[in-house]
């Protein structure tokens, strides 16, 4: 999809939504409260739904409205509700042991965004798309991906890791709305359902962890080595 002749208002709206989503992932990095993570993830999902609808309207893909609706339903309402239930049942409200302080993770997150920007610019230049909203989408997608991996690496609560995984998928989701809005509907639908299965099975696993291991801190999981 090329956006060479995109309406400037639409282009700035896309950019605004993409950058707002990126900022929300920094809220996740900068906090140690699980509810903050959840809130940031929920808001991010709503923004992505808005973005789908906006892209659908501007570029003329009516099926994106459906995607937007499904995103709100699953990622904006159902997933947060399920995770909130797990948080309540676990009675854990924050990261107890941080291997990287919030401020240090923010700095590393910023460096990752710079890296993503360099990669995206390089690719944009090669493909003759420099300066367009496409480069921004690539940047945001790669940054959210890297920040998700950072979350997985430095946060140890089971819930943080689930949210880190969902953050990875959100990045792909956001990027796909702008880069390939015409991607066959089937794929995106199945990805939505796939995510639902992920969270369901994670719920079971968290319960197992709690009953058998007695804690949901993944640092307890270090018996298998070598």
């Amino acid at each position, binding site marked *: *999809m090329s956006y060479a002749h995109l309406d400037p208002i639409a282009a700035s709206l896309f950019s605004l939504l993409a950058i707002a989503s990126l900022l929300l992932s920094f809220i996740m990095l900068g906090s140690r409260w699980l509810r903050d993570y959840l809130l940031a993830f929920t808001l991010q999902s709503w923004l992505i739904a808005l973005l789908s609808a906006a892209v659908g309207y501007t570029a003329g893909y009516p099926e994106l409205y459906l995607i937007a609706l499904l995103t709100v339903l699953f990622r904006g309402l159902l997933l947060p509700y399920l995770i909130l239930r797990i948080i309540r049942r676990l009675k854990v409200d924050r990261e107890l042991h941080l291997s990287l302080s919030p401020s240090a993770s923010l700095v590393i997150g910023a460096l990752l965004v710079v890296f993503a920007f360099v990669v995206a610019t390089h*690719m944009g230049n090669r493909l003759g798309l420099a300066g367009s909203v496409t480069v921004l989408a690539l940047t945001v997608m790669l940054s959210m991906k890297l920040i998700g991996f950072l979350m*997985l690496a430095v946060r140890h609560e089971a819930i943080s890791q689930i949210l880190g995984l969902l953050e990875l998928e959100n990045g792909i989701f956001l990027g796909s709305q702008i880069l390939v809005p015409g991607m066959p509907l089937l794929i995106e639908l199945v990805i939505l359902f796939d995510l639902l299965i992920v969270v369901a099975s994670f719920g079971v696993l968290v319960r197992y962890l709690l009953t058998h291991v007695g804690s949901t801190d993944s640092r307890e999981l270090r018996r298998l080595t*070598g």
Partner: protein
Amino acid sequence: MTGALLLLLVLSPTVAAAGCLILRRPRWCEGLNLAAAAVSLLVALALPPLALGGPRLYWQTYVRLDAAGAWTILCTAVVYFLASLYAVGYMRLLDEDRRLPRFYALFAAFACTMLAAPLMNNIGVYWIAVELTTLVSTFLVGFELGRESIEAAWKYIIVVSAGISLALLGTLLFYWGGSLVAGPTYDMTWEVLQGLAPRIDPVLLDTAFLLVLIGYGTKVGLAPMHTWLPDAHSEGPAPVSAMLSGALLNTAMLGILRFLGVLDPAHGDLLPRTVLVALGAFSLLVAALFIVRQQGIKRLMAYSSVEHMGVLALAFGFGGPLGIAGGLYHMLNHSLNKSLMFFGAGNVMRGYGSKEIPAIRHVLSIYPRSGLLWLAGAVAITGAPPFGLFLSEITILRAGLAGPNAWAVAIMLVLLIVIFIGFLNHFRLMYFDDRGPLPAAAKPLSAWCVAPMILAIIPLLVLGLWWPQAFWHFFAIVAQQLRGGT
């Protein structure tokens, strides 16, 4: 006709899974699962000849049967059948009759996802099928509900899901690259992508491929993304370990192989192959280091899987008709052999009540017959003649010498010898070390636990002595189809 066969292939485990959940009687579930496995195996045996005439499409082109897919399905079905036989004997030993229906339902569902994944024509749907295999098998890995098995299941789902999301990103970039030349909406099937690839910017193509390689490589267990593999393989029940190692890893490897086929005709760039070869060589190195110092018997087998996936990566990275032939032959041999090894490890673990190699001594005094089979399997898995893996590894070495990455052949040779010594040293201690105490006599094994080992070693020996001409022909056609020919 072939469409009906494919339907039967996927439906029989599905029906078995549903039946297990409805009937809830342990003995019936065993039978159902075994029957489904037998049907799948019969169908899978018939598939490779049907794929010879070029890829065939079914159900509005969602399903595609090609030669490489048929071969992977055959490997999966063989392991599924052997593991189902073995599960009957092994799961009775666990004394968990109440949970058996759930086990067999998950087991059949796991087999179903693995049999279906190679048939997916749409690249996105293939990704979803591979992700589904993870979700189902997580519960099988954690089935024993012990501390360690839950830990293994958790690591498995987190590491593999995170890794495979990179494959999705790569797939997205492929689609995006295609949309720049073919317009925003098209069906991303293997064939379409192959047609578009020459017109996509090579840098974008390489980036997308590297992401896909890391993503599916996590699932294949290539080092350094292998961290989940030893835990998951060692903590699940033995039949599940056999399925993970002998079938699941191949299913993900097929994705890498097909993407290589997309890239190859597009541009002559060596980078993708070199990276694959480097990952394979590094997997061999990591496996060699951990095999030499290993204490856990099933972890030893798991690192041997890392080794053999490394060998497969080298084979497909070397490429050419010879590399593909050696790789596919190796895939089948490894599936047979690794099932045998996990069955033997399961028997020994039950007999000695321990997973630790130092606790296992004088195996032959307890298990004279199945012990011998396991020892023969150990000789085979290290690539010694007269078994199948010897032939396939020699073929892969020859393929490497012919290609541009000949440096890897020397590394592969040295590491294979290190692994041969390290692996067999553990078996020397377990079988012939005189210092250990003589173990108390264990309960004799039921025929269910020994028969699948015999069934695995016979074809392994035959394939080692005789490489059928028909196989050469078939592998040549696979290589041709992967490059887009018919």
